């Protein structure tokens, strides 16, 4: 079975490279997007098994991308974990209400992130059965 595909959408190169290393080491296949438009396009085309979405990105911010993903039936089922420096209550609630499966605030704990990713992927597998 092919390894699960995870899409990392973040405009910060360093963050992306870190997460790619983090996840690739654990056997995931990682796709990257550097801005909002790219994030949507790649999600639509590649239909990853999970998406890590930054909020502050050029061209379209994370909330816009999330909204569009949830609107289209093909992409609505992609689980999304928001990862952002925005840590205010309103923003976290907004993200979760918009359909994100989880919200991780930056700075984040890398082991925690991996655990959350694994949990969601396993849940999806169970659902598919």
């Amino acid at each position, binding site marked *: 079975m092919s390894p699960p595909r995870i899409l990392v959408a973040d405009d*910060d190169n*360093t*963050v992306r*490279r*870190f997460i790619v*290393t*983090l996840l690739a*080491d654990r056997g995931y296949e990682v796709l990257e997007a550097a801005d909002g438009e790219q994030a949507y396009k790649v999600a639509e085309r590649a239909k990853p098994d999970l998406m890590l979405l930054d909020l502050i990105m050029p061209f379209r911010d994370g909330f816009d991308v999330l909204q569009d993903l949830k609107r289209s039936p093909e992409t609505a089922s992609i689980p999304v974990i928001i990862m952002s*420096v925005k840590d205010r209550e309103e923003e976290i609630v907004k993200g979760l209400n918009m359909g994100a499966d989880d919200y991780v605030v*930056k*700075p*984040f*704990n*890398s*082991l*925690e992130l991996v655990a959350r990713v694994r949990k969601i992927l396993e849940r999806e597998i169970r659902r598919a059965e």
Partner: protein
Amino acid sequence: MSEVLIQVLWVLGSVLVLLSLCIIANKALREMRERRGARIRRDLEPRILEYINGKGERLAALLPPPRGMERQVVEEVLLDNARFLKGKARARITAACEDLGYVRDRVRQLRSPRWWKRAEAAEKLATMKSPRAAPDLIALMRDEVPDVRMRAARALGHLETRTSIKPLIEAFRDPNRWSALRIADILSGMGPGAADELMESFATLPIKARVAAVDCLGRARSHRAAALLINLLSDPDRDIRARAAHSLGLIGDPNFTPDLLRSLRDPAWPVRAMAAKALGKLGRPEAVAPLREALKDREWWVRINAAEGLRSMGEKGLAALVDAIEAEDRYARHAAVATLEGAGVLDQYVEKLASPDEREREKALVFIRKIVAAERTDHLMQTAARHTQEKVREQLSRILAPGEVKA
């Protein structure tokens, strides 16, 4: 004379050419350096990232000892990643910085004769978060250059050790207001320990610092500060009274209500506004009536905070707002309607117009007529024009037609 001139022209010409060459050389050198740096980074980064993610005990073991530009690049990679990480990974970065001598080097740089080098060192140490730097950073808080002091303060704030708190509070006395604000930011992120120290030193702080200190206590949600804050509600300075009310709201104990109700009658409007906001957060029923009174306040901020406060108080609050739509005071009416609009209550009632239940419809009509009587019909008119359901549009248009409106 012309020879002199011609020579001057030559000189100037050469200066120009030299200047252009300088620009070009500068750019070329920089690009070369950047390219080299990028190459080194590509080479070393994967191993550094592996280390951060848990591989091996020491980074020094995974890499050949970095020299020259490599040292710079490795430090850069470590610090870049430190920005967005916490927990074990972050601790490993700190360990690597100590291990490879970066902390030691930067601490030494804290004594540089050039102020921007000192500031840079403090800045980098803030990200490294090594407690070994604490004593030197504390010493740097007495630096003559304010920028350096600020960065030292910030670095100390990141260290979160008990020893950093006192010097930071000392720095609160800094006459520069910007510094006081930043220190307030730093202290409020340092947890309850800082709050306790702040309370102890409170009496000795100058007025400007006190305002920031009060904010800190609120943001730190320090319940132990409650007694002090309640006392401050009677302070002669109005800013302190206002921030004290705000902080009490942040701490959120409903028992503060009686004191805040008194502040609701404060002669200074910022205090009233903050008291209204805090009361809304505390949510006690005895605050409903006074907040409704506050809807008539002369100052917009107070009215809005009172209305928002009522809105966040659930059923009783909303009922008070609906009631206020018919108030005699125009300001109160406006504030009430604006808040209800914003809360979507108006739209809810409009939807009820389409309900099959007769009683629901009646209730909705009554409510809407009140809004019309309050002379705030813009939103209703918009809805009347656009609503998807014919039935709703029809009823709304009838109400809004001049005949139906009671004076």
